């Protein structure tokens, strides 16, 4: 049965994981996301659904536990924040190379280095451009509410398994820590081992007499064969770009100016849009929900009517580069954002659009 | 009285001529051939087949699992 609750974004991730039938969580504490594992440990899903929850010795171990679990066809996840996600990049590269599905939640904090525990969106490049070594990408979902934190857990698992590729929920310290009303979905059954044998014949579940041995690996020493493996992975990214773009467009039909923002910045930009509309400026908001695949076509469809686009990010300007690539110079694109843990106000965003795009008029 | 007589079969093309079987053989049955296999290795062979008692030591230490061992008990007159 569905249930209405008031809870933190981080807690919603944990609740949603159990309810969607996840098989395992492996993690390491780091602010501002420690509530994910704390909630799971308090709920003890191993006694109810059978979900395994384990505190690992490091983020490096966590992501490699995901590799092992995913290789067995299980729905496994971890969560961390920026410095911890940096430590996971090796494992993510291996998982992308071995075509393993998993969910990694990044509740982003300010960097670089140890940075700050306050919210930021400065891990965009790391999330959408691969992050580790080699040609690969993650499927990246950006929630802008506690409800989406909950909903995107199952969505991320579905996409990850559909495309056999790691998926990331790219959140931030604000969404992770804030409390909102959230509707939690009814409990779903976990896959049985028999389900996995049937649904995921690639998984290492023990070699049956009637099949060849399954090998989960990212190594191929024959360069020609390895190029083929890379092509297979790239074809998935092309398909993702064609089929899986998700976004929200608000007041874009008549818009002359466009605010583009995801996650927390999208909430703030929505308020900024209201301020600017009240002043008579025709401003819309385009909120990418999938950061990879990025809503390129959807943005291109708007370029004819736009005088300017403002990318609003809690970073020094990362998504703005993808916007510029998408519009191919046809529209002026500027960036505004506070960073290093500072969250911008709607007024700051509204002022920035006027200053940078309308000449202050 | 009874005696064990044995023999070995070497998968010549798999043998890498490492000589560990030669060393492991307690009755000096095995030697490396003067000829080479397809990969250019001097492969192991029974240079002194009469002495083989089928003890399996050569096969146990063979890293490439290319030795098969047979053994038979015979009554000596």
């Amino acid at each position, binding site marked *: 049965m569905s249930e209405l609750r008031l809870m933190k974004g981080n807690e919603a991730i944990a609740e949603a994981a159990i309810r969607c039938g996840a*098989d*395992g969580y492996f993690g390491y504490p780091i602010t501002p996301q420690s509530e994910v594992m704390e909630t799971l440990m308090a709920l003890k899903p191993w006694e109810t659904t059978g979900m*395994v929850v*384990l505190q*690992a*010795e*490091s983020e*490096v*171990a966590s992501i*490699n*536990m995901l*590799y*092992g*679990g995913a*290789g*067995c066809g*299980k729905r*496994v996840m971890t969560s961390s924040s920026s410095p911890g996600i940096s430590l996971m990049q*090796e494992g993510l590269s*291996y998982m992308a190379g*071995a075509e393993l599905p998993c969910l990694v939640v990044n509740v982003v904090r300010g960097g670089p280095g140890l940075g700050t525990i306050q919210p930021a969106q400065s891990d965009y490049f790391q999330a959408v451009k691969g992050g580790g070594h080699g040609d690969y990408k993650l499927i990246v979902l950006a929630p802008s509410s506690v409800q989406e934190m909950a909903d995107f857990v199952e969505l991320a698992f579905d996409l990850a398994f559909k495309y056999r590729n790691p998926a990331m929920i790219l959140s931030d310290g604000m969404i992770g820590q804030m409390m909102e009303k959230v509707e939690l979905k009814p409990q779903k059954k976990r896959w049985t*081992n028999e389900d996995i044998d049937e649904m995921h014949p690639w998984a*290492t*579940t*023990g*070699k*049956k007499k009637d099949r060849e*041995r*399954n*090998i*989960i*690996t*990212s*190594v191929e020493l024959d360069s020609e064969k390895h190029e083929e493996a890379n092509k297979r992975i790239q074809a998935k990214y092309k398909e993702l770009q064609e089929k899986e773009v998700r976004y929200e467009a608000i007041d874009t039909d008549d818009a002359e100016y466009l605010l583009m923002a995801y996650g927390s910045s999208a909430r703030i930009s929505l308020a900024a849009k209201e301020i600017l509309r009240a002043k008579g400026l025709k401003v819309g908001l385009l909120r990418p929900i999938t950061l990879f695949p990025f809503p390129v076509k959807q943005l291109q469809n708007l370029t004819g009517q736009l005088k300017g686009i403002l990318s609003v990010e809690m970073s020094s300007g990362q998504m703005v580069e993808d916007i510029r690539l998408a519009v191919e110079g046809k529209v002026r694109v500027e960036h505004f954002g506070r960073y290093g843990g500072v969250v911008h106000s709607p007024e700051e965003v509204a002022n920035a659009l006027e200053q940078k795009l309308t000449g202050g008029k | 009285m009874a005696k064990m*007589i044995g*023999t070995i079969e070497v998968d010549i*093309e*798999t043998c*890498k*001529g*490492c*000589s*560990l079987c030669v*060393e*492991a053989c307690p009755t000096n049955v095995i030697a490396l051939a003067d000829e080479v296999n397809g990969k250019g290795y001097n492969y192991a062979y029974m240079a002194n*087949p009469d002495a083989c008692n*089928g*003890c*399996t*030591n050569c096969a*146990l*230490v063979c*890293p*490439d*699992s290319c*030795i*098969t*061992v*047979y*053994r038979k008990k015979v009554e000596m007159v």
Partner: protein
Amino acid sequence: MEAVINEIKKPENLVYGKTKVLTDNVMHYCPGCSHGVVHKVLSEIIEEMDIQDQTIGVAPVGCSVLIYNYIDIDWQEAAHGRAPALATAMKRLRPDRYIFTYQGDGDLAAIGTAETIHACNRGENIVIIFINNGIYGMTGGQMAPTTIEGMKSSTCPFGREPVHDGNPLKMTELLAQLPGTAYVTRQSVHTAGAVRKTKKAIRKAFEKQKENKGTSVVEVVSTCNSGWKMTPVEANKWMEENMFPFYPLGDIKDV
């Protein structure tokens, strides 16, 4: 003589042949490499325990990265040093399966030290097979955490000097201290007798897993004749004279 050999060479007289759990792929290892012997022993145990369909191996980074080409079971290939982390999740998510890692000294005792120690300390119900040849074979013979004092490698070309290079690590003794380990042993495969003992040890480790006893660690002190720049026979002799005094063979812990 030909007639006598043909008389002996009959199916009913077969006393030792290649196990079916080994594939027909020719191993890429150098002539005389210990890996092949340990692969064979492991495969024989899997056949004898009849667990080919219930066993999942974790391959390391190192020469044995391609072990999955040789042993006919399901495999996962881990990032360098991370095999015990993979195995931890695999066993917890599939407690009905036999899970083992196969790791070299660089993998287990250098880059993967944390994963190894914590998996053992948690008492993960897995088997760890640890091939210790005191050198990085695959990358061309560099110094390993287990390279003994005075031993030459391409990154300690004049011999390991502890003041400069640090000390060799007795990882297996260290792991035996941890409450999570059930069976910790050090073996070798340089003679037929040693191969038999190693087989017994690995079999025991798998039996411990069956009984949910905790982590088993089987170290196999091995040769890397190419990396050591010796013939296989010389390498075995060198190992006996130089490695065994520092890495003595035998069971260290059996709970």
